[in-house]
C-alpha cells in the first residue's frame, strides 16, 4: 500500500473539502463590497459615537453603584455594578467581532497606513502594561506594515479579554466583600483601560478605512467586475 501517497491525498482532500466546504461566496462578495464601498467618515463617526455611548453607560453605572455603596445600599450597589459589567461584556463582544473583521479586511489591501508602536505606559492595570510592552517589543521586530497592523489587532483583542476577565473577577470579589475598596478600584482601572483600548481600536479602524479608501473609484469598478464576473 503506498501509505505516503495515501496519507498525503487524504490530508489534501480533507483540507480542500474543509476549506471549500465552508467557503461562503455571498459572504466573501459582501466583504469585498464593503471594502470597495466603505463610507469611511460615516462609519468612523458611528463607531466613535458607539464607543462614547458604551463608555458613558459603563461609567454611569459604576458611579451609580459607588453612590449606592456610600449610602449603605449594598445590594443595589452590587446589582448596578453587575449592570456595568453587562455593558462591558456587550461592548467587548462588539470589539472582538470588529477586530476579527479588521483582520480579514487587512488582507485585502496592499498597504496599510502605519500605526505608532504600542506601549504599556498608557494602561493602568499591570497585565495590560505587560501586554503593551510585549506588543511594543514585537512591533519593533516586525518589518511589514500589515504584520505590524495585525499585531496591533492581536494586542487589542487580548487587551479586551484581559479587561473583561478582570472586570468579572472584580465584580465577583465586590459581591463577596462589598466594603473592600480594592475590587471597586480594579473595576475602575479596567474601565479606564477599556477606554484606552477603544481609542487604539478607533485609530486602527481609521487607518484601515484610510487604506481601503485609497482605492480609486475607476479601479473599484474593474476590481468589482473581476470579482463578480471573472
Amino acid at each position: 500500500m503506498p501509505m505516503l501517497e495515501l496519507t498525503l491525498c487524504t490530508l489534501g482532500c480533507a483540507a480542500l473539502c474543509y476549506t471549500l466546504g465552508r467557503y461562503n461566496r455571498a459572504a466573501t462578495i459582501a466583504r469585498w463590497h464593503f471594502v470597495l464601498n466603505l463610507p469611511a467618515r460615516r462609519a468612523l463617526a458611528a463607531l466613535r459615537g458607539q464607543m462614547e455611548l458604551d463608555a458613558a453607560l459603563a461609567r454611569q453605572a459604576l458611579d451609580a453603584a459607588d453612590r449606592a455603596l456610600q449610602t449603605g445600599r449594598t445590594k443595589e450597589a452590587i446589582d448596578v455594578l453587575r449592570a456595568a459589567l453587562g455593558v462591558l461584556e456587550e461592548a467587548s463582544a462588539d470589539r472582538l467581532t470588529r477586530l476579527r473583521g479588521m483582520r480579514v479586511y487587512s488582507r485585502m489591501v496592499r498597504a496599510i497606513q502605519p500605526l505608532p508602536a504600542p506601549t504599556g505606559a498608557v494602561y493602568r492595570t499591570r497585565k495590560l502594561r505587560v501586554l503593551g510592552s510585549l506588543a511594543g517589543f514585537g512591533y519593533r521586530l516586525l518589518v511589514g506594515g500589515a504584520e505590524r497592523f495585525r499585531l496591533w489587532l492581536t494586542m487589542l483583542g487580548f487587551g479586551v479579554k484581559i479587561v473583561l476577565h478582570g472586570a468579572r473577577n472584580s465584580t465577583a470579589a465586590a459581591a463577596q466583600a462589598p466594603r473592600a475598596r480594592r475590587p471597586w478600584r480594579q473595576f475602575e482601572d479596567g474601565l479606564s483601560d477599556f477606554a484606552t483600548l477603544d481609542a487604539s481600536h478607533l485609530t486602527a479602524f481609521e487607518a484601515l478605512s484610510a487604506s481601503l479608501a485609497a482605492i480609486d473609484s475607476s479601479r473599484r469598478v474593474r476590481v468589482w467586475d473581476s470579482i463578480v464576473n471573472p
Partner: protein
Amino acid sequence: MTLALLLGHATKVALLALLAGMVMRGKLRQCWSFVVYVVAILVSNVLQSVWPHQFITPSFWLVKQRTYDVLKMAIALELAWRVFAAFPGAWQKARVVLAAVLGLSTVAIFAVRPTASYSNFFDWQPKITTGAIWLLTATALVVVRYEIPIRDWQRAIMLGFAPYLLVFVTLMGLLKRHGWSFVSQFGTLDALAYLSLLLFWTYSGWRREHRLELPSGTGRGTAEELAPAPVEQPVEVVDAHA
C-alpha cells in the same frame, strides 16, 4: 449487458449531460481545460465501447492516463490563474505555493519514471494524483486565506475532483496489495466513483449562477452595462498581498 458496459454507457450519458449543462449555463469559459478534459474522457470512453479490442489495451490505457494527468494539472493551474488573475498579490503567493507543489510532484514522478509501465502503474500513478490533489488544495487554501471570490462552478470542480482522486489512489493501493486478481473490482469501483463524480458535476453544471449587480458606490447597473475599459495593467490597488 455486463456491468462494466452499463457503467460505460451511463458515464457517456452523464458526460453528455455535463457538457450540455456547461453550454446551456455558459460555464465553458470558466475553465477551458476542464472542457477539454471532459471531451477527452468522452472520446476515450466512446473508443473503448465501440472498438474494445483496439482500445482496451495497456498501451492505450497509458496514453489516455497520461493525457488525463496532464489535463488534471492543467485544470488545477487554469483554475488558480482564473481565480487569482485580478489579485496580483494573492497570485504572487499562490504562484510560489503552486510552483513548490508542482516542483515536488515533478521530482517524485521523474524519480520513478525510468521504470514506469502499465504493469506497475500503481507505483507511479498515485504520485501524479497526489500532485494534482495538492495543486487543487493549494489553490483552495490561498482562496480562503485571502478571501478571494470564486465562482460556484469552479468550486464544484475542485470539490468534486479531490474526493474522487482520493478514492482512485485508495483503489490503486488495494490493487497493489491484492495484485491483478483485483483488477476487475478496481475497474468497477473506479467507474462507480467516477460516475458519482460526474453526477455531482452535472448537477452543479446545470445549476444557475446569479449574476451580481454592481454596488451603488462602484458604478451603475451591471458589470456588462458598464463595460469597463480593458485593463492595460494588472489592478494593483486592491489585492491580498498585505
